[in-house]
């Protein structure tokens, strides 16, 4: 078990004219040590959903169980919320929501310090996390607000990595990152996954989903529209789902129309495809 969501609804600004129900009776389960992708159209409720996993938002109905933590809509306050935030690290969609301190180094060392580390250890931890994100020492004393968009995201990611949570939730972690940095982040995610961590990634990038995730949840208007394996998602009629077919699938579809059906080959990358096509040609 890692995260179990049972009959959860959520309404923003309840009892005001702006009241808006963003999630309707959602149930799903995220298994320990999986890499789960959460996809769905703009405004479908993705960011709302994951903010409940570490207690930033409280469900209006139902319960969320995260390993030993129970978040029950009937309770007034979430119990052990500080420990929960150590257990579940969430990187926001907009890094600006997370960055707050005067310098990059202070910002990233805040988390470990807040969870009990002494100053020196926390700084070391921060430097280590920044290095993982490719942010070198020339940035330590700079203001996190005077960085480029991608640099801000990397610092925000480092801030959560420094806490070393067991469950890592990334809300569009590659938006604004250059291709090399995206790959570095995703490679790191794979490594953390191998070390036993549970990963949740919100993304619109179907190639990413297909390449890295073993489980996908599709939200539509605050409901779960699909829950299963990524390869099965694209077999559905996706026209109205605001998702896209990975490019490799689009090409396989062109081949199929021309009479070459490779759907049984389980092809996931250009290299695998080229291998199959080359062998076929030799025959």
């Amino acid at each position, binding site marked *: 078990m890692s995260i179990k969501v049972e009959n959860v609804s959520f309404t923003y600004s309840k009892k005001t004219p702006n009241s808006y129900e963003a999630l309707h009776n959602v149930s799903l389960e995220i298994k320990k040590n999986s890499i789960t992708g959460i996809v769905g*159209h703009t405004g479908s409720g993705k960011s709302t959903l994951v903010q409940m996993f570490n207690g930033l938002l409280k469900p209006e109905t139902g319960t969320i169980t995260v390993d030993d933590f129970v978040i029950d809509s009937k309770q007034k306050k979430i119990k052990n919320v500080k420990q929960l935030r150590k257990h579940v690290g969430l990187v926001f969609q907009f890094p600006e929501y997370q960055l707050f301190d005067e310098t990059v180094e202070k910002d990233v060392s805040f988390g470990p310090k807040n969870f009990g580390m002494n100053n020196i250890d926390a700084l070391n931890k921060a430097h280590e996390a920044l290095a993982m994100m490719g942010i070198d020492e020339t940035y330590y004393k700079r203001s996190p607000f005077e960085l480029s968009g991608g640099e801000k995201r990397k610092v925000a990611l480092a801030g959560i990595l420094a806490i070393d949570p067991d469950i890592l939730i990334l809300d*569009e972690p590659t938006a604004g990152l250059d291709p090399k940095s995206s790959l570095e982040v995703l490679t790191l995610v794979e490594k953390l996954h191998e070390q036993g961590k549970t990963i949740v990634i919100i993304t619109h990038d179907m190639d990413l989903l297909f390449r890295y995730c073993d489980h996908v949840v599709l939200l539509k208007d605050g409901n779960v529209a699909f829950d299963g394996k990524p390869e099965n998602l694209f077999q559905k009629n996706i026209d109205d789902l605001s998702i896209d077919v990975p490019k490799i699938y689009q090409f396989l579809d062109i081949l199929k129309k021309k009479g070459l059906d490779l759907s049984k080959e389980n092809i996931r990358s250009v290299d695998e495809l080229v*291998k199959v096509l080359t062998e076929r040609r030799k025959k």
Partner: protein
Amino acid sequence: MNIIEVKNLTYSYSEEQINTLHNVNLTIKRGDYVSILGHNGSGKSTLAKVIMGLCPNYQGTITINGKELNKENLAAIRKDIVMVFQNPDNQFIGATVEDDIAFGLENAQVPHKEMRDIILDYANKVGMSNYLDKEPSNLSGGQKQRVAIAGVLALNPKIIIFDESTSMLDPKGKKEIYGLISLLKKNNPDLTVISITHDIEEAYLSDYIVVMNHGEVIKEGTPNEVLKNASELAKQNLDVPFQVKLIDALNKSGFDIKEDASLEEVGDIVCR
């Protein structure tokens, strides 16, 4: 004709810092759709902000639509060129989506009686007409980007700079926005669009590509000139468009396919 000319532009945010932009020279043709690529921190947003007149202490000259960028011309230039910022939150001023779009129109001295129609039209075009009375800060990430885009399109400018303005849109939303831009360009072939992006597939479809690296322009040209060589792209930390990657890999394993073949043509060859 060139709508933007940048000559020997050098800029640094502070004296202690090394140059963020170093001797940048760039010309952009009227009516082009230009993509600017480059690694994080390469100076793309800074270049855009300097061109917008937001970073005054630069060296070099910048000419926009025939007017040199300086204090006297700034107000006139701001009528020609608009920008969607990388973080839409930095752009919102109004308390509601409607106020926010109205604010820009007011600045552009659009008569009050025309405003409501323009706002409805553009909110509709980006699929946000049901959100006019919402607070911009309470929208989802993609909704914010849509509103920010509507706000600048409504101003009917000559040049639009998009700074990663579709990075958080769902694939369908992205297509809708690109469709909207190409419709606007069709109705007004002189509209110049500059798109700062990491999306190589988007860049592949543009008229012209500029590649930045550590504050300098290191490469520019048509997509075919800039993006055709897969191994060189990888060296420059650029992504490789799927099509280029596929053709390159097929040719390396013995196929003989033209560099600029379409996916349909590639399909015909491999199915033979």
